[in-house]
């Protein structure tokens, strides 16, 4: 296949008409039903939420390093539920900061980035379909997601501010305004997550239908690119887990506002019921936030190593196993919750078992890199960092899986380090890598590689400086969710570590600036992207950048799997899925 330069236009915007009829401005950009435009809408919205949630994290870190010190400059402009009259963050305000940081990062940043952006962009393009099965639901899903973000963050303007009972919102603290002091904020949390859940369910049903029914001829299940497998499994997890959260959020809303007592300790309510419902959703949720990143990273690593994925089927089965086992490990969040001790033992077992497929995936990534011809693009750097950081996050999980050790480190900074290694060093690094990788297809222009590398180096270094010492803080017995560690004798000597972490966190926050500049500059001024800049095999790289409305001029036919790189006997080191292998060449798999 020749490297023809597509005649790219300034943005996705101008090219989205293709051979279809001209659409009005409103139908084209606002109420668009084109999966690529919806992916773009998700992208910009999640980027905005990423900045907001990141700023909240800066507030959290500021307070932990300098408790009681007035926030410089902006302190006096902050609302009274957040700061004291001198502009210092108050304990209740601190609770609100970390609650909203986590809620926003999970529901408004990582999920929509992985599922909203790359699910929408890649599913039709990589399976050779013109669009999603239900374009209307797809658009509806985005607008519900945006609405949920507005409801959640809108509570900032309520007199009592953000919800403040943690992103886990354990009852009865969350169920009674007299305990949490934020009736409106907590109600917004319930409604926001309910609406967000509707968006997820609509999206999930759409993804499953699309992948099952709309694959191009020849695109057998075992010829699907790994991002699609990951997104398909994720969609099943969403469909089964999210309704439980929605129901729980509705029940909590009733407890909070209508005097029911599902989760209160009086009137036969059960506080632990909330935890079971929440984590029945919450643990699959963890995999919902990592599986798509695993898929994206697999794709990036294979392309940039110029090698087939090592153990494609093992990768798929490992993800299926994670998806299945993900539903029977939720109790490991509750070893010390007062749950039956024997139940803890069984959940500990399933948790140990679920570590196996994660290990398999890691070994297969190593196997993919082995013997490769690695191109260090920015996307590849982030993907490799994903593997490295995921190893750390995975291994630190084993400590918590061992019930007796959990007695010591439960709810300490050790687990804060763990989740950030998985969600930031894992999922978000995967997202960054994927943005650098698919940006040319989305916008028809290339991002700047040098500035990409600078972003990567800064993010990688300061990520580790921020989160690695948290392991030590946790082992030192520093609790999560305390507004002022200097209140405790055993933590006072740890304060220099907290200050070091905070400075690193600020640097990590600033490292986003080169990315943002690069992103927006390249969108308008970057060099035009060819059809297939990375010499990749999957179908999205066979259509112009950006693809026209309807994606494919004619429905492509698929002849082999997506990872036929460096096939012996071929001139080029890649073989797109829509091209049959030359007669002289025998492919080793499917």
């Amino acid at each position, binding site marked *: 296949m020749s490297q023809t330069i597509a005649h790219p236009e300034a943005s996705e915007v101008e090219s989205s008409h293709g051979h279809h009829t001209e659409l009005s401005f409103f139908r084209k950009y606002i109420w668009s039903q084109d999966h690529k435009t919806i992916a773009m809408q998700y992208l910009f919205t999640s980027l905005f939420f990423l900045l907001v949630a990141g700023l909240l994290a800066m507030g959290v870190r500021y307070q932990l390093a300098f408790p009681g010190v007035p926030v410089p400059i902006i302190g006096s402009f902050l609302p009274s539920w957040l700061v004291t009259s001198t502009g210092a963050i108050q304990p209740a305000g601190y609770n609100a900061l970390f609650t909203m940081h986590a809620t926003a990062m999970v529901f408004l940043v990582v999920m929509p980035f992985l599922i909203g952006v790359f699910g929408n962009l890649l599913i039709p393009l990589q399976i050779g379909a013109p669009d999603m099965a239900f374009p209307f639901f797809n658009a509806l899903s985005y607008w519900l997601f945006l609405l949920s973000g507005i409801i959640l963050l809108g509570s900032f303007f309520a007199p009592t501010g953000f919800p403040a009972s943690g992103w886990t919102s354990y009852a009865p603290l969350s169920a009674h305004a007299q305990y949490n002091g934020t009736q409106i904020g907590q109600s917004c949390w319930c409604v926001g997550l309910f609406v967000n859940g509707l968006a997820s369910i609509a999206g999930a049903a759409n993804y499953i239908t699309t992948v099952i029914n709309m694959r191009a001829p020849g695109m057998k299940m075992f010829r699907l690119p790994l991002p699609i497998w990951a997104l398909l499994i994720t969609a099943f997890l969403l469909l089964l887990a999210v309704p439980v959260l929605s129901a729980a959020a509705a029940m909590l809303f009733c407890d909070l506002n209508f005097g029911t007592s599902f989760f209160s300790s009086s009137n036969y309510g059960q506080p632990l019921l909330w935890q079971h419902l929440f984590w029945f959703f919450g643990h699959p949720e963890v995999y919902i936030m990592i599986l798509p990143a695993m898929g994206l990273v697999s794709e990036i690593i294979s392309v940039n190593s*110029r*090698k*087939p994925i090592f153990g494609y089927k093992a990768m798929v089965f490992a993800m299926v196993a994670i998806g299945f086992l993900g539903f029977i490990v939720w109790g490991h969040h509750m070893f010390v919750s007062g749950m039956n001790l024997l139940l803890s033992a069984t959940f500990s077992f399933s948790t140990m078992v679920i570590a196996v497929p994660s290990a398999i995936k890691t070994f297969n990534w190593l196997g993919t890199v*082995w*013997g490769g011809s690695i191109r*260090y693009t920015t996307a590849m750097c982030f993907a490799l960092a994903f593997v490295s950081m995921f190893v750390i996050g995975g291994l630190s999980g084993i400590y918590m899986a061992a019930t007796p050790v959990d007695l010591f480190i439960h*709810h300490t900074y050790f687990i804060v380090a763990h989740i950030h290694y998985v969600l930031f060093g894992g999922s978000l690094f995967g997202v960054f890598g994927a943005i650098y990788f698919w940006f040319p297809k989305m916008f028809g222009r290339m991002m700047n590689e040098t500035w990409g590398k600078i972003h990567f180096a800064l993010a990688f*270094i300061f990520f*580790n400086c921020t989160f690695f010492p948290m392991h030590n803080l946790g082992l030192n017995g520093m609790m999560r969710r305390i507004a002022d560690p200097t209140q405790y004798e055993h933590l006072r000597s740890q304060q220099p570590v907290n200050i070091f972490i905070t400075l690193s966190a600020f640097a990590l926050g600033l490292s986003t600036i080169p990315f943002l500049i690069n992103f927006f500059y390249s969108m308008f001024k970057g060099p035009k992207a060819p059809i297939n800049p990375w010499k990749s095999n999957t179908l999205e790289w066979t259509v112009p950048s950006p693809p026209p409305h309807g994606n494919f001029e004619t429905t492509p036919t698929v002849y082999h799997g997506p990872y036929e790189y460096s096939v012996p006997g071929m001139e080029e080191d890649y073989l797109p899925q829509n091209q049959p292998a030359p007669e002289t060449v025998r492919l*080793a798999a499917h």
Partner: protein
Amino acid sequence: MLKQASRTSLAFSAVVALLLVATGVCARAGVRTSDLWWMPEVASKEGVLIDQLTYFIYYLTGGVFVLTQIVLIYFLVKYRSRRGAKATYSHGNNRLELLWTAIPTAIFIGLWGYSNHLWLDVLHAPAPPDSMEVHVLAYQFAFSFQYPGADGKLGQSDVKLIGNDNLFGNDPNDPATKDNFQSSVLELPVNKPVRLRLNSRDVIHAFYVPQFRVYQDMVPGRTIDWVWFTPTKLGSFQLACNQLCGSGHYNMKAQIEVVSQQDFDKWYKEKATAANAPAGNAPAQSK
């Protein structure tokens, strides 16, 4: 391309250097002089067993961590793209897959066996018969403690009876509750097992003492009575609430004093007589 590979390794060494510098800076500051980067010195008999497991996992995961990262970095340098070099065409190896499925499975199940034995048979075995029972009540935002009094028995209590005039929900019909006395400090004799009866009045709190390696949520509406431990070191410790419980959570703590049996007996006798002198089970809040 070579340049880019060395750039990656440069970034990696920068991280290592920075982490080392950070260690140096932080290790110099602070009141605590030992184990600054590690767990606080263990102060309970059971904590020693937990630490053994923690170290076992530490060496296990540490080994896996070092190995996988070395292999990754080695591959990244060795297999960087070079002119004329073509990647190996391989879709995988089933024997390897089997191997790296079976070995982790065996390790993890073995680890579970070790960990679960400790959890069910040791840490949560019935408390030794010579243990002392203490009733702990948590509420927004403090802890209260109740001791059995002269008869050595706490007596029956019921979460439904917990209220302002009956903090611990003592059963008024049980004579054993009559001589119970209260304290705002958790005073414990060294080397004697103590068994906790945990209650909360409002929201979920937690009983967390890192030096004892003990954590347990205290759930309103439930009595949790399976936590016990044996303090082995004299001195003061802090009991911290470690479950977000509202605006005052950050400062919800109580003092723990581990003293010799002799000192404890003296303290206990004083408290017991003081509490019983006026009117049996008065809800006095004295130290």
